[in-house]
């Protein structure tokens, strides 16, 4: 139920993002989703790619600091209110969203959102109990 996400540390210098995408391109790695969180001093680039370990290796060799984290990919009805419904379930279960971002492609008729929760196990349970579809890593990588 968990999807592996890669996080990369970004100093606030120009060209870092370009270099990361170049490294991934050279290694034939496809980005499925990404998000940049930034402060005045640095940023964190979060990526869902189709070949996690290879991407991590390639980026490390290129001198980047890379971490792997587990996140959840959730199907969300692609209509107004779709996201609100999912977030209501999250709130009622008393869960905290650390961050979230959207996927490039759709899963059939649905949008896909990546979530990181403070308590991943409770989150998976609560969402499944409410009938929310959680995609597996394999499904996500092959979308």
């Amino acid at each position, binding site marked *: 139920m968990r999807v592996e*996400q890669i*996080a990369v*540390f*970004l*100093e606030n210098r120009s060209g*870092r993002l370009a270099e990361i995408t170049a490294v991934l391109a050279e290694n034939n790695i496809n980005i499925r989703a990404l998000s940049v*969180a930034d*402060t005045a*001093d*640095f940023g*964190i680039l*979060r990526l869902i790619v189709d070949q996690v370990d290879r991407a991590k290796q390639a980026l490390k060799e290129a*001198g*980047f*600091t*890379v*971490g792997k*984290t587990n996140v959840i990919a959730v199907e969300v009805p692609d209509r107004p209110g779709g996201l609100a419904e999912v977030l209501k379930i999250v709130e009622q279960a008393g869960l905290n969203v*650390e*961050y979230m971002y959207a996927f490039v492609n759709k899963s059939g008729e649905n949008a896909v959102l990546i979530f*990181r929760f403070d308590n991943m196990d409770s989150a998976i349970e609560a969402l499944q109990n409410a009938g929310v579809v959680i995609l597996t890593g394999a499904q996500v990588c092959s979308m």
Partner: protein
Amino acid sequence: MNWQEIETLPRAGMESIQLLRLRKLVERVYNTVAPYRAKMEEAGVRPDDIKTLADLRRLPFTTKDDLRDNYPFGLFTVPMEEVVRVHASSGTTGKPTVVGYTAADISMWADVMARCLAMAGVTRKDMIHNAYGYGLFTGGLGAHYGAERLGATVIPVSGGNSKRQITIMRDFGSTVLLATPSYALNLADTMTDMGVSPADLQLRIGIHGAEPWSENMREEVEQKLGIRALDIYGLSEVIGPGVAMECPHTDQGMHILEDHFLPEIVDPDTFEPLPYGEAGELVFTTLTKEAFPIIRYRTKDISRLVAEPCGCGRTLVRMEKVTGRTDDMLIIRGVNVFPSQVEHVLMGIEGVEPHYQIEVSREGNLDTMTVLVEVSEEVFSDEIKGLEQLGKRIQTEIKDLLGVTCGVKLVEPRTIQRSEGKAQRVIDRRNI
């Protein structure tokens, strides 16, 4: 003999006083301080061997390491109940350097500091605005007691809250400013912000020390505050402020109060004493301190001794303004900082690599220090708050150990230069 007589003694007179005091000092320290006795025995020298001032060179040096090894009170010559005050200053790693004073020492300190104020032209009629920090730092209280001994009115403002300081200067009529040179310029900037000009104040003299400053800075201070700005030198291991002072003839350096503090210049590599006029490391022996006397303390400050007679009539030898250090110590906003202390903090945080760099610059006349730390895989977090917490933790631990608030900049791995041999830990962009 009053202090005016002492300060104008012919050399022979001064030297006999120094020799008499030196012999008593060495005898006392040999008999009461085991670590000193051990060092002297190792060097094969006994108190009786000190027959002339030239024999000073036979005595072993004392360094900050000796103070650290005998932390906190191992080098004191009296029981703690005789010690009426302790002060502390930065050590090279985790522990500070501790110094102590008997009642007689405090009185002597007040005297030497009062003499320095008088040398600068300060009198009992002056209103002394003391912006040196009060606390473990010797600057604030050292200057304060000197001001009271002189009989002037002292305002113990300490540092910080610049706007309030300007208001006090204007309303109380402060005539003498005691502050670090960079803080003096910071006050000048605050004055401009407040629309206060030097003509609105009564300031006439500034006495600045605790950090190095150039002739250019002196001009700036004098011009912006409308004062005569003079240099003062001291260090807590010797006493605090009051070791040397510029008289208004500021051409050749500061007069050393050598009846209390015997100076030498030694070659920084061979440690051979050098003659007057040659530059080297400044070394001091305290001739009259009771609780914590110190023999041949290597200050790591680079200077030179000037014997030429001074226009003020004083025969006290002068030391040239300190031009550099033999070690890597920095002074940030008046606080001594050793890069090794930063390293000590970083090594104590799991996962933080020992690859760091310190950038020092001056913004708006206040020193800023930024520590660059490489983000390794161990400390990396996928959440912003994780990294922010890391930065905050480093900042807090540095503040706790060093007493200085610095910025922390997280950088990518392998962006801090590795070097063969000694790493270049510090990039100092200040133009002092």
